[in-house]
């Protein structure tokens, strides 16, 4: 299990993140942030498909995305 968190107030809606997501779960919402951009999002029902690959965060020019992964259980 993994998930991403968008710091929406920094997003500029460039959608570069959506082009690199292997699961194609990132889309543009209809919400505008204070800067006036329509922000990127992953819908709650799609989040379970996130692999935590960090591709979206690596290509994002605006440091919007935080990526979390479940820690492997210790034996």
């Amino acid at each position: 299990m993994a998930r991403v968190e968008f710091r929406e107030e920094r997003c500029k809606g460039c959608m570069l993140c959506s082009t690199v997501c292997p699961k194609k779960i990132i889309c543009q919402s209809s919400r505008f942030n204070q800067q006036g951009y329509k922000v990127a999002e992953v819908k709650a029902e799609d989040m379970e498909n996130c692999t935590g690959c960090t591709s979206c965060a690596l290509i994002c020019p605006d440091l919007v995305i935080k990526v979390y992964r479940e820690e492997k259980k210790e034996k």
Partner: protein
Amino acid sequence: MSEKLVFDAPEIMIDRPTHYCPGCHHGVAHRLVGEVLTEMGLVDDTLCVGSIGCSVFIYNYLDVDAVEAPHGRAPAVATGLKRAHKDKFVFTYQGDGDLASIGLAEIVHAANRGEKISVVFVNNTVYGMTGGQMAPTTLVGQKSTTCPDGRCADEHGQAIRMSEIIGGLGGTAYCERVSLDSVKNIRRAKKALRKAFEMQINGTGFGFVEMLSACPTNWKMDPVSANTRITEEMIPYFPLGVFKDVTKDGEE
């Protein structure tokens, strides 16, 4: 269930939204510099030399000591800083208008002298800040405000390939061209920065990293198409790779 944060902005990045346009690669380049400085433990010992161009406010985003150089003169300012403060890590951050046009003399001579500085060169094939005029790096056929019918080789010459020039100079220790258009290339770009920075830390010499970057606004493209333009038009003309690595010379 416990979870781990596997990607976050490095602490060295000041938490404020940038003034860059959507899809501008200066943001990616800044972050890569920040990550490498952090991972190499250089944050407290770094002097950043900013240049003139859209990245002029780099000191608002990277929390390190900084000097703002006159247009094109960053390598000269960095030369002075490094010679006076040998214990500091000194890098310049320059656009293609700044480095390859007005500052061509400074970059070539700093490299040729083998100054122990590092240069981050963001090549987006235009003068971004001033509204998209033709730069020495503008591709033949590319339209700009000063060549509205496209750059013409007969009249303006061909786009200058800086890494090939810098890689050919005796004082250069490391020179690589990378691109910020894909996840794979961004990872590669980070490795290149680390290599170039190590050359300064080890006292080997001058390090240069050219990053092929997008300026969607002045290319009059949406960010995703601009990114694709790097892949389809820039990389074929500006080949990626290492143009000089003195630590490898003679090995092959």
